[in-house]
Each structure stands twice: as C-alpha cells, then as structure tokens.
C-alpha cells in the first residue's frame, strides 16, 4: 500500500526536495526506496524502464546519506533520483539502445553526462525506454505508456524519460534529441523537455544517431528543475569533439524576473494549415498569457522553415546510415521496419545533397541570427497535432491521417539543424485530456532567457501535479 507521503516523495520537484534533503528532514535512502518501490509496482504496466538499477541506486543513496550527514552536501541534485535514456553509456550497466542488435551491451565507461550527475550526487534508479537507436519503434520492446491516456502515444524517441518523469517514477531524466526526440515526449506526456545549445552538454557516451544533430537533453517536472539539471551537466568536455568552450552561467539567475518588456517572435510553422484545433486553442491561450505578463509578441515567419524536413532527411538519415553501416548490411533482421527504412534512404541520399544541406544549415543560422537580433526568443506550438494512437505513426489532424515521421521537423527539428536551444513545457490539454505543450527557442548559449520565459509562463498555470495513470488520481483543477 502506497502512503500519501511516499507518493509526495516521488512527485516532488527537485527544487522542492533538495532543501529537505539538505536539512536532513528527508533522507536519500528514504526517497530512493520510495521511488524504486513505485517503479517496481508500476513498470510492468507503464514500460518506462528497460533496466532498474536497484542495487546501484541504494548503494549511491546510502553514500549520499553518509556524505550529507558528514556535512558534505554537493548541491540540489544530491540525493535525488535520475534515470538515463538507454542509449547513454553506463559502466557495468546494460545499455540496450532498445535494439535487438546488441541488447546486452555493457559499456566499460560512463557517459560524461552521467559522470557529471554522479559528481553532483544524483542517484541512478534505472535506464529508460526509447525508440530503437532513438529513431524507430521496435516491436521487441513494449512502448512506454502515456500516463494521461494509455491508448495515446507516449511519443519518442525519449519516451521512457517523458513517461517516467510525468508518472512520478523519477525526479529527472536525461534523454536525447535529434529532431525533437527529447521535446516531443515532453509535449505528449506533460513534462519539461529542454535541448540546450549544440555543444553545451556533452554527447560523449550517447550512442549516436546523427553526429551533427544529436543533443543530450533534460526531462523534468518543472522549469526550475530543468535549470538545475542543466547546471550539473553543462560545460566543455574534451572527450566530445563538438563540445563548446563557452562559459557556463548560472542558469537559474534570471528565473523569476518575468517577461515584462521582452520581445517574443510568434511562429506558427510555415503555414497555418494542418494544426490541430486543440493545439491552436492552447497555443493562442499561451500567447495571451505571455502578453498579459507584459511580453511584446509579434507574428513572424521562420526563415527556411519550409525546407526543414528535406534538410533533416538529407542530414540525419545519411549520418545514421554511416553509423549503422555494418549492422544495416549484415544484421538487418535484428532491426525494426522503420529503422531499416531510414537506413535504406540514408544510404541513397547523394553526397552532394548532404553537403548542400550542411551549407544550408549555415544559411539558416545567419537568418535566425538576424531574427534574434530583433527578438529575445521565439515561441511556437511544440507539435502540430495531438498524440496519435499508441503504437502507430499516424494521428488525425483536421480529419486527415498525418504521418508523424514527416510532421515533426517543422516545429522541433529546425532547432536541431540550427543548434539553437529550445524548451517544451506543458500548456494545456486536448479534448482527449492529453497534454499539449508550447515551445520556446532562443539565441545560442542563452538558455537562461528561455528558462526565464518558461518559468514565468509556468508560474501562471495550475498544471496537475499527478497524471491519472498509473494510479487513478482525481484530476486536479482544470487549466
């Protein structure tokens, strides 16, 4: 029987939990035990985790408890639980990539992002579910279940991160994002998903999907928590060839300063067509909220957004095909249908198109730099549509079937192409009671401004603290 106190421990934000751990009102072992018990109880139905690291977690929790008791408090992540997408290397712990190619791979070193979280005192409770190699649903692994509507998709590829965070099965999670993989699951599961600037957070130890598009991302239950996790993981890593040497600021420094007087560009995609009416309604309400908070908002057309899908296809698929070259040819029977489809087309994209795509990304960078000379940030829907049917790639938009694989890049993938930071946070619900988020993107390495805007918006909402599943909690007051 779960007590209300145990539930509270699991659903607290990191920012709420940290001072209680620091003051020793709550112990890391108590928190970790409550979280592990909850995971054990519900993972069979939610499929958020591929591997649960109970022994590792309890050992880390006991160590944290000793350290804090001895006066060695490391900071707000000390003693709180985290999970890692299972394409992030963990020394001595299976890292499956949700694939049947090497389902029992045990890395011999930790990813930098995990090493940094460990240095901050965070406790690993498990490795979470994902799409196969971060780009394809794999029938060999059950899909993670959306805690708001089990018959609707939990999206991907960081599905386990989104579900675990939203369902109170971890305090914070690390995912990855190549075209929206860290933000789309935040959108449909009701979490905060943040992709910092390319190069800001090390990709060392993240099994690559696309070298130039991959980002390591934060998944949390609040904007402030996102800042805390980014603080612990950001910064130059000599082991990541594209890691940035830009200085790491205090990401929480401007949280709470509001948005009055800020200039925001409003982007609805390159057409207004194909957007679900529920998405439009939630987005319009969010825009009204930000205006009421004092932001100046003007509608803009994002530069080159209409080419985003083609550029994403010309970049991600060839890079993935190169990474999986041997597996594609010699172990294709172990790959899922969509993975094969993407590797097939990636093998045939001409080198000339790949090169032109990389040149175009710099053209886009210049155009966005000009745009952001005039605006502090860009706000948009996170995705055009409500979550589709679980286990499928389609959803209905205005009564028409839309293939989710071709509908995402316009909203999320454009910021992988440009490397700009972008955050998705909950904003409302669809008529099916599934979460709908908004996206805030900004200048390279100015994550703090995005967090400031997102926090100001978050402060206005009464987002329900707990989703209805896995338990059947009464819904909190409507948005």
């Amino acid at each position, binding site marked *: 029987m779960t007590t209300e106190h145990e539930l509270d421990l699991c659903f607290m934000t990191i920012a709420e939990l940290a001072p209680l751990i620091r003051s020793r009102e709550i112990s890391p072992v108590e928190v970790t035990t409550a979280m592990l018990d909850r995971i054990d109880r519900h993972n069979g139905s939610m499929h958020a985790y591929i591997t649960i690291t109970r022994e590792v977690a309890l050992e880390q929790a006991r160590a944290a408890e000793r350290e804090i008791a001895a006066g060695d408090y490391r900071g707000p992540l000390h003693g709180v639980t985290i999970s890692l997408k299972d394409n992030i290397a963990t020394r001595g712990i299976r890292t499956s990539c949700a694939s049947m190619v090497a389902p029992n791979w045990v890395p011999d070193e930790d990813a930098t992002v995990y090493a940094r979280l460990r240095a901050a005192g965070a406790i690993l409770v498990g490795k979470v579910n994902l799409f196969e190699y971060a780009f394809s649903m794999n029938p060999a692994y059950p899909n993670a279940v959306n805690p708001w509507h089990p018959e609707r998709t939990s999206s991907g590829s960081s599905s386990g991160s989104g579900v675990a965070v939203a369902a109170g099965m971890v305090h914070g999670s690390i995912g990855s994002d190549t075209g929206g993989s860290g933000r789309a699951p935040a959108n449909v599961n009701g979490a905060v998903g943040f992709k910092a*600037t*390319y*190069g800001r957070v090390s990709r060392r130890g993240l099994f690559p999907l696309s070298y*130039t598009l991959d980002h390591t991302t934060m998944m949390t239950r609040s904007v402030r928590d996102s800042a805390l996790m980014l603080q612990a993981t950001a910064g130059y890593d000599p082991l990541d060839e*594209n890691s*940035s*040497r*830009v200085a790491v600021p205090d990401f929480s420094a401007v949280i709470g300063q509001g948005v009055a007087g800020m200039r925001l560009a409003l982007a609805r995609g390159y057409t207004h067509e194909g957007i679900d009416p529920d998405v439009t309604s939630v987005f319009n309400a969010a825009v009204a909220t930000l205006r009421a908070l004092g932001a100046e908002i003007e509608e803009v057309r994002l530069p*080159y957004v*209409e*080419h985003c*899908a*083609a*550029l994403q*296809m*010309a970049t991600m698929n060839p890079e993935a095909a190169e990474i999986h070259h041997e597996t*594609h*040819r010699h172990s294709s029977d172990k790959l899922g249908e969509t993975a*094969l*489809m993407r590797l*097939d*087309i990636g*093998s*045939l*994209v001409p080198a000339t*198109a790949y*090169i*032109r*795509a*990389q*040149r*175009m*990304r*710099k*053209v886009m*960078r210049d155009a966005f*730099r000009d745009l952001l000379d005039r605006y502090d940030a860009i706000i948009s829907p996170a995705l055009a549509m409500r979550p589709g049917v679980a286990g499928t790639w389609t959803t209905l938009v205005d009564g028409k079937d839309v293939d989710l694989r071709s509908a995402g890049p316009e909203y999320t993938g454009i910021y992988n192409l440009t*490397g700009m930071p972008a955050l998705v946070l909950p904003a409302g619900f669809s008529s099916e009671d599934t979460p709908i988020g908004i996206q805030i993107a900004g*200048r*390279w*390495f*100015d994550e703090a401004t995005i967090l400031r805007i997102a926090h100001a918006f978050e402060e206005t909402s009464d987002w329900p603290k707990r989703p209805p599943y896995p338990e059947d909690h009464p819904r909190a007051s409507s948005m």
Partner: protein
Amino acid sequence: MNLADDQMIDRDTVEVLARAQGLDLPEDRLETLARMYAEFTIGFAAVWEIDPGDHEPAAIVFDDEVRS
C-alpha cells in the same frame, strides 16, 4: 530545378542504386525506398535553388554565436 514525372527515379533504378551500396533489398523495402527517394528528391529540389553563398560544409561550431 523542377522534376517532371519522367525524371522521377523508378523502382528498378532504385534497386540498382541500392545494389551499388551493397544493399540487396527485398521487394517491399524496394518499393518503400523508391517512394521515399522520390519524396526526398522532390523535397530537396527547392533546396538546390537556394544559393548558400560562401558557406562551406564544415562542422557547425556555435561558439561564435555568443553575444556580449
């Protein structure tokens, strides 16, 4: 560049291209690949029309984007 229908690459041509890449694909994957290749070619045609100026295809490094 605009692709007329007769410039679209057909299934047999895609099979040859795939074989050149060392891929011996079953029929269902060939059909899917032919469709995707056509979609890609059409979508990317508009990209070819944009002049990328002096930009070279070196890896993007964003350090120079930091504002004071």
